[in-house]
């Protein structure tokens, strides 16, 4: 019997029990749709996260105090205070062509406190940083200016406000040259940054910037920096620049050959890789959970096919009486099972793609940079898995049917 006839018979067999066929398919439809949705939404979420990370610029290298494993988080991420990195360390990277690929360097400390102008208060984060911060992070001050190197040296009490902070504190008033209080210290507003939105999951518009020296000495009473950033000429030179930074810092910290680093250097590209691998793992983990529903769907199909074999025992007997071989009966029931699972798989893929598209539309409406990603591999795999489920879960009922004795089957009531 040719495959066309086998599929045609399978189709006729299934058509006679339409609602049951659909109910059987439902398990596979839900399972495949879930897998497609999770992979697509996972990829969308990944693109969102990576876009956030990339929005900082891929030619940035982070320097953090304290040693850490290559792929592990730096100590600061675990809440451990390390004091091994100083502002002078970072400044030295630009001196004497120590790191030839470095274009600009900045560093920072952070603190939180209440900001006040007249009666208006705002609980925000202040960042003590260098005059080169806008250059490294690639943004421009909208109104006024960023503080300069002299102000940085002189421990000047000047502040640059994020757009939201300016709006909250000053409303329609002009903030420039107004004095605000950060904690209990007075600062003069010299600039307001244009709206920047969220970068690396932080609303940049809720930050205020003060000179690093002022922050360390007046606000925090410390002499170290918690994070340094080096902007390099092009992304391709990242590896060389990281090595140069490490060499310079080791020299400055007088570390012997066998002593470990007391700092961590991380390229932005590395962060992207780490985030990619985390989101990939998460996506595949969730897809694997969704795939369990396919297993349940497969067991459902096996049950239904077993019932079908019992119901159609006489038909099997008749086919055998008319010349069907065991393998004809086996392939007929296997074809039915595969037709159910493959059709379910195709419908599941369609539903999955539609739902994933709707998610991307909604996410974009909500302002996220969400990419609608549909993996052709996932679609192909879904169809292949559907067929596999049909074969695996159909084989037992099909073998049972094939083994029926023709005359006993014909006598079956």
């Amino acid at each position, binding site marked *: 019997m040719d495959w066309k006839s086998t599929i045609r018979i399978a189709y*006729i067999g299934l058509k006679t029990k339409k609602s049951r066929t659909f109910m059987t398919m439902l398990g596979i439809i839900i399972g495949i749709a879930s897998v497609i949705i999770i992979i697509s939404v996972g990829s969308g979420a990944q693109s969102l996260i990576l876009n956030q990370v990339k929005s900082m610029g891929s030619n940035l290298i982070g320097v953090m105090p304290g040693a850490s494993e290559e792929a592990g988080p730096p100590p600061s991420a675990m809440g451990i205070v390390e004091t091994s990195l100083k502002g002078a360390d970072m400044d030295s990277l630009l001196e004497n062509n120590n790191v030839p690929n470095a274009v600009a360097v900045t560093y920072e400390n952070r603190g939180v406190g209440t900001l006040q102008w007249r009666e208006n208060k705002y609980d925000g984060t202040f960042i003590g940083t260098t005059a080169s911060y806008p250059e490294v992070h690639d943004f421009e001050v909208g109104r006024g200016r960023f503080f300069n190197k002299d102000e940085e040296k002189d421990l000047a009490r000047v502040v640059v406000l994020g757009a939201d902070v300016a709006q909250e504190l000053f409303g329609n008033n002009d903030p420039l040259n107004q004095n605000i209080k950060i904690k209990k210290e007075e600062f003069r507003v010299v600039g307001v940054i244009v709206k920047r939105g969220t970068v690396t999951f932080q609303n940049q518009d809720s930050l205020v910037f003060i000179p690093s020296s002022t922050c360390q000495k007046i606000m925090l009473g410390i002499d170290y920096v918690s994070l340094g950033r080096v902007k390099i000429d092009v992304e391709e030179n990242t590896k060389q620049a990281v090595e140069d930074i490490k060499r310079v810092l080791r020299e400055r910290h007088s570390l012997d050959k066998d002593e470990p680093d007391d700092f961590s250097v991380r390229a932005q590209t590395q962060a992207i890789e780490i985030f990619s691998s985390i989101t990939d793992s998460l996506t595949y983990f969730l897809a694997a959970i969704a795939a369990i529903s396919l297993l349940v769907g497969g067991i459902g199909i096996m049950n239904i096919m077993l019932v079908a074999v019992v119901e159609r025992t006489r038909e099997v007997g008749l086919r*055998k*009486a*008319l*010349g069907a071989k*065991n393998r004809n009966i086996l392939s007929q029931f296997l074809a039915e099972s595969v037709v159910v699972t493959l059709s379910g798989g195709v419908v599941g893929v369609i539903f999955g793609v539609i739902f994933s598209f709707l998610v991307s539309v909604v996410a974009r409406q909500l302002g996220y940079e969400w990419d609608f990603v549909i993996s052709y591999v996932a679609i192909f795999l879904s169809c292949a898995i559907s067929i596999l489920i049909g074969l695996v879960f159909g084989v037992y009922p099909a073998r049972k049917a094939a083994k029926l004795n*023709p005359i006993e089957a014909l006598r079956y009531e």
Partner: protein
Amino acid sequence: MEKTLIKTVHLCKDYDNDGVITKVLHQVDLEIKSGEFVAIMGPSGSGKSTLMHILGFLERLSCGQYFFDGQDSSKLTDDELAVIRNEKVGFIFQSFNLLPKTSVYDNVRLPLLYDDKKRIKNHNDAIKEAIMAVGLYHRIGNLSNQLSGGEKQRVAIARALVTRPEVIFADEPTGNLDSKSGKLVMEILQDLNEKGKTIVLVTHEKYTAEHARRIIKVVDGSISDDFEVKQRLLAKEENDLIK
């Protein structure tokens, strides 16, 4: 002289039900020539249906020998038996056994699906020819559930004919039919026999058996009598009377 189509030598059949052996047929010696119309007759439980199932390769014998067209069938594999069932024999069952909600055409086509050797060159022609032979061409597109009992059995006959088998086995073909439909079915069988087809009919009714040319009586698993029918009933004449 016609060739011997069916020959059994000391054929027996036992059933083993959880260790309890039931002897259904014993020492059956039988010979049927090509072109014969034989009725196997006997009361319920006599073993006549089992004998037909063995002769039709639906069941295996327990001992003895069964030669079909000179070939010993006892050593054939399941697949070889399936091929013989497809090519050499046709079945007509008491309960029709048509595929539900399937057209007359597709029901008649069923055995041709398993014609792996493409013995029948033009399936479409063969199907139409078989349906025409039973006078149901006008019903070719109808579904099996839209047919009367008599029509269903005629579809079953067309299905048995479509592979052009050497012998047709009919197990109580009129058992589920009213007398008018029954006579029509018998007329078709007699007509086929007239055209040279070998017919083996199983029935418990004397009246139906008398449509055959030869009656083999089976009692308690053995052949008790085997004789030519002197005054054969002709279904065509009976039908003419009905009309």
